[in-house]
């Protein structure tokens, strides 16, 4: 069937787009299923080694272990020092250190 | 068919460049009649034509089309009437560039939502009638003057209007093509269409296709010698 009208071509490509999205959903579901065991193993390592943080940024203590950090660490060089590590801009202070939660 | 009563049209009312295009125009156009509007530029021909074709509203006065007053109709209804009743051929043809002749012919019918296959067929039939079926898939830039003219005519006919309006149709055509144009007009008149042609070209207004000549000057109709 030759597509004559431009609008038909367009709708077909839209359909293709929706199909692609569905494919992505399917791929995600399948990958999650396949990865399940690996994910459990990762969780086991965390438990066995008693780890508390993801190793995403190793440049500063408070970005390597944000959940263990205290308010002091980013500014330890000097009372008026600014946070000078780039990843500090990305990784915000953990909620339990923020002013509204400090009372706990 | 169309009646104009005490029509006045002023552009830029109240501003320094206020301009009275038409004043005190009274006119009746009969059905299946071919009327020519003659007059120098600035005489109000084009304005009168646009009022007759429901493309503009008069500043004062009343217009009746097929017994129905259209002066104060909202835009939507006016557009519908314009689309169904009138087919317009412009001086510059005004075809949409970059698309084919066939697509150009079909455009006025798009908002109606007619089925594509039947619309396409009707358009092809019209192009065939005007002997340019072979150019259906050519882009309009590649058409010759005569072919573009016929595409413009075909476009004006796609909605099967009862009234054809042509604004200076022969202005950009040589004698041969001008005469050809009037022949096509003769054919359309034979099919029962009403024709309104504004032109200062004698080939147009002196043609035997024309039943009546209306002369215009300075925004008014010059009363004809025989007083009608």
């Amino acid at each position: 069937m030759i597509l004559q009208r431009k609008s038909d071509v367009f709708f077909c490509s839209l359909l293709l787009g929706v199909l692609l999205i569905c494919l992505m959903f399917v791929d995600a579901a399948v990958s999650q299923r396949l990865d399940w065991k690996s994910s459990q193993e990762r969780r086991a390592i965390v438990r066995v080694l008693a780890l508390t943080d993801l190793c995403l940024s190793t440049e500063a203590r408070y970005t390597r272990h944000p959940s263990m950090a205290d308010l002091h660490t980013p500014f330890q060089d000097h009372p008026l020092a600014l946070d000078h590590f780039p990843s500090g801009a990305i990784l915000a202070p953990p909620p339990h250190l923020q002013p509204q939660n400090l009372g706990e | 068919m169309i009646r104009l009563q005490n029509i006045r049209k002023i552009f830029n009312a109240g501003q320094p460049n206020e301009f009275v295009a038409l004043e005190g125009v009274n006119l009746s156009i009969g059905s299946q009649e071919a009327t020519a509007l003659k007059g120098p530029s600035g005489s109000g021909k084009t304005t009168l034509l646009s009022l007759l074709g429901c493309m503009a509203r008069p500043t004062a006065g009343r217009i009746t089309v097929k017994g129905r007053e259209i002066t104060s109709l909202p835009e939507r209804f006016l557009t519908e009437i314009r689309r169904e009743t009138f087919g317009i051929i412009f001086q510059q043809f005004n075809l949409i560039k970059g698309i084919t002749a066939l697509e150009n012919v079909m455009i006025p019918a798009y908002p109606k939502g007619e089925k594509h296959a039947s619309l396409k067929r009707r358009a092809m039939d019209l192009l065939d009638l005007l002997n340019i079926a072979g150019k259906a898939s050519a882009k309009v830039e590649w058409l010759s003057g005569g072919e573009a003219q016929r595409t413009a005519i075909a476009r004006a006919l796609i909605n099967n209007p009862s009234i054809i309006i042509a604004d200076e149709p022969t202005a950009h055509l040589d004698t041969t093509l001008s005469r050809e144009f009037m022949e096509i007009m003769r054919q359309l008149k034979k099919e029962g269409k009403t024709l309104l042609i504004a032109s200062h070209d004698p080939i147009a207004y002196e043609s035997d296709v024309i039943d009546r000549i209306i002369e215009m000057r300075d925004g008014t109709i010059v009363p004809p010698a025989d007083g009608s």
Partner: protein
Amino acid sequence: MGAIEKQRHILDFTLATLGRRKGKNIALIVVYTFVICLMASVVFFADALKQEAAQILQGAPEMTVQRLVAGRQDLIPTHYIDSIRTIRGVQSVEPRLWGYYYDAFSGANYTLMVNADLNNHPGSIIIGAGVARRSEPGKPPQTLRKNDLVPFKTYSDTVVTLQVKGILPSESELVTADLILVSEADFKTIFPIPAGLATDLVLKIRNAKELATIAAKITRIHPDSRPVLREDILRTYAAVFDWRGGVILLILSGGFFAFIILAWDKATGLSAEEKREIGILKAIGWETSDILLMKFWEGTAVSLTAFFLGLFLAYLHTFLASPLLFEPVLKGWSVLYPHFRLTPRINIYQIAVLFFLTVLPYTVATIVPSWRSATIDPDSVMRM
């Protein structure tokens, strides 16, 4: 039926007119695809990382107790264990010894951690996969293998050499990339930790409901202690990667405004040619609403195409190719960066938000400025 056919006709016309400036419109789609790809990548990455963190950090200790002195974290006396162990609900209390070791050779920071299993094997270390890639900057990468020797500078300016006993699996790099597990003896050789002190304490607690009570009791017994609950850890990572806040929102807003500005600029600059064509269409029988429909399809054709393409490319980029975008952002000045592949995660909410941030504003920004020109008088074309 007529209504659908009308839409198809207007769409036919719109696509035909878009095709007149093929080059420009293709360039437009490419640019928008790129912007959407960026925004979608950020959303996919952050969400996937957040869910990954939520899953694997479920294995984190229920409670970690630190000691704060003058607001700073300090070493915690191990005798605190005795008093804490007596609290009802506490299953076990273990001291943790860990810290950061700066490796001058590679310029990297490693997390050095004592592992009880190695206490019977002094002189051995187990390293993470990121550590195994240890090499001198600017030189070709080497790989540490089992039985290789690694020198460590100690606090007393001597060097102690430890042997690699094993390498942690690369699938766990997200949590272990920079880890070096050592015996307690070796740890204390490298770092001057006096006896009777630890970095912090980890608790095993039976009943999750008692966590808050136990934490309160601990701070009452030891006012200089600070308990960190597993819940705090999970919340930390949920907040970090929540794309509804912080840096990520900034990036998304940037993309959103880029769209609006580009679309508005395009639409307000309706050329004389475009205005003339609108005049012609109105003269031959199109209403203002038909013109606006045409503009709608113009905007939608471009943005929807870019949307689907951008989403697809973002998915490929984030989950199949390793995310090129994010490594420099997260890495910062770090020398070491974990190699990990995120499990793909996608949901309707993300797609809806991206849709409303990109396709919708572009379409609106195409229609609204065209309003003026769409209401042009039909007879204007006669006067041109």
